[in-house]
Structure formats: structure tokens, C-alpha cells
């Protein structure tokens, strides 16, 4: 029963954060809400017995990919005007909404860590099980994902270099 309540709280946070992310005019502010949304999804993963997926969600999505986004956006705004704009972005009131939402998630996760027993309904998927599935029956999918990344890399290399040549 308690898990269900926690699930709905986390889902509400995810929905709210996503809606806010879509409606922000400023890309950086939208990204912060998107990170909150991903964190909420990670909490949901944790609740349904997939702590490994929850960890990956945070490390890969909220961590690597979002930081990359923020980096690119900030690098496009270098110089004096960029500094001024950044100061404007980082006003305290901007942090208010994301802070509340992530505080809710933090409270949930602290509570979950404190309770001894895990979710009762489903078995927990361990990293070992994920690895065995990926490199057992689904090994073709792993290899195909490698090819997919290669296609993305080569394609973006070609288009990116074209943009550079145009500028010079």
C-alpha cells in the first residue's frame, strides 16, 4: 500500500517537472526541470524493484547527457554578455521550484533507504541478471546498438564538418 502512495507521489513529480520543462522559455531552466523529471523516473524504477536501472537512469541521463546539454548551451554564450545572462539565469528564485520537487524525491528515497524490507510485490533485478540477459539471448541487440552509435557518429561528423567549412 505504502509503495503505491510513494509511486503516485514520484509520478506526480515526474509529470509536473516534465510539464514545467516544456513550458519554460529558457533552455537552461527547462533542462533543470528535465533533470528533476529523470530523477523522479529513477525513483519509480527503484520502487518497482530495479535499483540498477535507477542508478543507470541517474548516471547516464541525468548525469552524462544532461551535463552535455548544459555544457553546449553555455559554451554557445561566451563573453561579457554571456556572463551577464548567466548571472540572470542563476537568480535564487529560479532554484525555488526545482529545489522543492527534488526535496520531495529526496524525502522519498531517504524513507525507502530507511525501511528494511524492499518492495514486496516484485523480485529485484540485479546488475548480474541484466548483464546475463544482455550478453546471452540479447547479444545481437548489443552489437546492433554499436552499429547504431557508429551511424550516429559518422553522420554527425559529416554534418558537423560541413557547418565548420561553411563558417570559414
Amino acid at each position: 500500500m505504502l509503495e503505491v502512495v510513494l509511486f503516485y507521489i514520484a509520478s506526480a513529480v515526474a509529470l509536473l517537472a516534465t510539464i514545467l520543462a516544456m513550458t519554460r522559455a529558457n533552455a537552461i531552466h527547462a533542462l533543470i526541470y528535465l533533470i528533476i523529471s529523470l530523477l523522479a523516473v529513477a525513483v519509480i524504477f527503484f520502487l518497482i524493484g530495479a535499483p540498477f536501472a535507477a542508478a543507470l537512469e541517474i548516471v547516464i541521463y541525468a548525469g552524462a547527457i544532461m551535463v552535455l546539454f548544459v555544457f553546449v548551451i553555455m559554451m554557445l554564450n561566451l563573453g561579457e554578455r554571456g556572463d551577464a545572462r548567466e548571472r540572470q539565469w542563476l537568480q535564487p528564485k529560479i532554484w525555488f521550484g526545482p529545489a522543492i520537487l527534488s526535496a520531495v524525491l529526496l524525502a522519498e528515497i531517504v524513507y525507502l533507504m530507511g525501511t528494511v524490507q524492499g518492495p514486496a510485490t516484485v523480485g529485484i533485478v540485479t546488475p548480474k541478471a541484466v548483464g546475463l540477459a544482455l550478453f546471452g539471448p540479447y547479444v545481437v541487440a548489443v552489437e546492433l546498438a554499436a552499429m547504431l552509435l557508429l551511424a550516429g557518429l559518422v553522420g554527425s561528423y559529416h554534418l558537423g564538418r560541413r557547418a565548420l567549412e561553411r563558417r570559414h
Partner: protein
Amino acid sequence: MNSDQLLVLSPIISLSLTALILMIQASIKRDHRIAWWISTLGLLTTLLSIYSASNFSQDVGPLLKVDAWGLWFSALLIFCALITLALSRDIFHTQADTKEEYYLLLILSTLGAVVLVQAAHTASLLLGMELMGIALYAMIAFPKSGDLPLEAAVKYLVLSACASAMLLFGFALLYGATGDLSFAGMGAKAASGYLNNPLLVLAGAAIVLAGMGFKLSLVPFHMWTPDVYQGAPTAVTTFLATLSKGAMFVAMVRLILDGQLYRYESLMNALSVVAVASMLVGNWLALRQQQIKRLIAYSSTAHFGYLLVAIIALPHLGDTQQLGRAAISFYLVAYIVTTLAALTVIANVGGEEDSDMQAFDGLFWRHPAQAITLAVAMLSFAGIPLTAGFMGKFYLITLTLNAQLWLLLGTLMIGSAIAIYYYLRVIFTMSAEPHQLNKGSPTVLGWRNPVALLLMLAVLAIGSWPQPLIDLIGRL
């Protein structure tokens, strides 16, 4: 994995190896002639490996189902890729360097298509579709000059991303209803899932089919088609129109048959609406096009509407389901070969920027072989006897009659009647008095003439002597 399984997977392995060899070649010496030859040899090796793989029937895990049907379509897709390669050899000659990536992307996209036709699991379906799509975005935007290719690529990218998102969401709903991600498992458990929660199954399946409809440019998801067909280099248009759409359609047939989606009547009714709309709107919009590539884009919407009729007819056939599969295979082969013939001529004659109808004024006097090929292709699209398109339509109409789907049959007839007007208009344009601008000396086509002639002979052969192909398809 044992050695038999590797042999069964050898078409996929061979394509991946070709891509890797191309990468290594690019790091040693960048030369586009060498890259072209490596790609051609790789595709030919893949054809051979498809032949050898057809001797084995081995389970290769949950992701792929390598059967005779999938292998036959894989071979057809490799053939499309080979024709695209032949067309691409000269088209980028204006740009001085770096054309090797194009061949790498082409091989990767073909790999995605081959995975797509053999997919038996939502994961492999999605991976195949994305691999095919991501390589295609870059291929569409490949030319360095002009903004049209870039615009086409962005349109295709954004709408494909929407389609992928819809597909994923639909799969999630279906997984919620059935608890299985393989097509067969979904089909087996969908009945009980439907009893528990009919909305979940229906909504999931409908969203998945809508996502696939984007890639097949069925109405109402057809908006991107003309711009992308027009903006892409003609060789890439050929690739998109034949390989990408053909592979997606085969995947859709597999999902509907193995996932037993045909059992839900409301879903099939929705598909009927899409089919009727595609046949009418596609043909109607094609009527007024002045650009031949846009005309082919809208006509492809109509043709996939016809093909959808065959899928809808399947559950009504009872014990003659084999006929349905044969009709789908035959029509798809006829459509792909005809499209290859038409777009080969457009690539040869129209050039890159100029696919305006005026470029084809008086083509019969300037390039008789090309003009005859285009005329045969147009007649085949229209379904005139002795061409491949006629046999395909004949199959479809027999199927629809057997299934007693009168509304769809009527729409198919009306659509075909409208279509004859604009297909014949192309032929009239070609036989008109040569345009003032085009009276200069004709461009030398050299070895690209026989490619077009070969495709024309294929269209005529399938149409006038279809028995070998019918036998072959019947055995699949």
C-alpha cells in the same frame, strides 16, 4: 552461439564486417572509388551469405526470426542497395573530397533494413528502424551545396523522432497489457490481456501502427514525403522509397501476423480508414504535381494504401491465408522494382536540382532508352497489363474479392482510375515536342543506360511471365 547460428546470421555479420572494413579503409587512404568497390563487394558477399543461410533453419534467440520470407526480402533489399550504389557513383562528383562516409552510411542503413525484415521482437524492430533512419538522415543531407537537402533531412529527422517516440509508447502499453515484448509472445498473451483491459491493447497497437504509418507515409502521416523525396539526392530518394519503406512494411506485416493484431476488429476498421484515405488522398494530391519526384512521393502513399488492403483482407480469408502473404510479397516486389526503374531514369536524366516535369520534355527523342524505361515504369505504376504492376493489382483485387471487402475494392478501383491520369501525363510530356532549353546535345550516360534497361526488362518480365516469381513466392 554455435556455428549454425552464426551461419544463419551471416547476412547481418557480413554487412557489419563491410562497414568495419570501410572504416579501416577510410583511416588508411581516403578514396571514394575504393570505398565504392568495397561496398559493392560487401553487398554481393551478403547476397551469397543469404543464399547459404537459407539452407539452415536455426533458432537464433528471441530477437530475430530468420525464415525464408525474411531472407527473400533481405535479398531484395540488398538488390535495392546495389542499384542505389550504382546510381550514387557519379552524383557527388561536384564535391571535391570526402564521399566515403556516404558508402559507410549506406551499408549501415542497409544493415538496419535487413534487421528490420527479420525482427521478431520489439527491441530488434526498434534498433533496426533507428539504424536505418539515423544513417538515412545523414545520407539525405549529404550534398554540401544547396539548402534543400538539409531542409529535407531536418523534416525527416523530426517526424521520424516523433514516430519512434510513438512506437516506444505503444510498445510500453502493449507490454503493460501482455507482459511480453516478442511479437509471438504478445500475440499469445494478447487475448487474455484484452479481456482484462481492452483499451490498453487497442491503444497500444493503434499507436504502434501509427508510428509505422509515419515511415510508410500513409495518410494522415504523409506530410513529410514530398519535401523529403524532392530535397534528397535522387539516389537517396531511390533508397528511401524502396529499401526503407519496403523493410518497414515487411516489419509491419510480421507484427500484425505474429502479434495477432488482426483479431481486433476495431483496429482493422481503423486501418481500413487509413487505407481508404491513403488511396484517395495520395492519388488526389499526385494529380497536380509539377515535380516528378513529388509525384512519385504521393503515388507511393497511394501504393502503400493498396498494400494495406492486403493486410486488412488477411483475417477474412480463412484457410487461404497463403494467398494473402503471396499477394503482399508479389505487390511489394513489383512496386520496388518499378520504383527503382522510375527513379533510376530520373537520376540519370533529371540531374540533381532539376526534377521538374519540363526536364522530361521530348525525352523520347533525346534518350530513347531512358524514356522507354520511364514509360514502362509509369505504365506499371498505373497497372497496365504486361507490366509488373498489373500482376500485383490483379493479385490484390483477387484477394479483396475473396475477402468480400467491397468498400476497399471500390476505393482501390477509383484510386487506380485517378492514377492513370497523372501517370500518362508523364508519358505525354516525354513524347511532346522537345523543349527549347533541352535541344542541346544530350548528356552521355554511358554505363548507366544498361542499369535502366535491366530494370525495365525486370518490370516487363515480372508482368508478362510471372510464373517463376509466383512459384518462388508460393514456396516462402
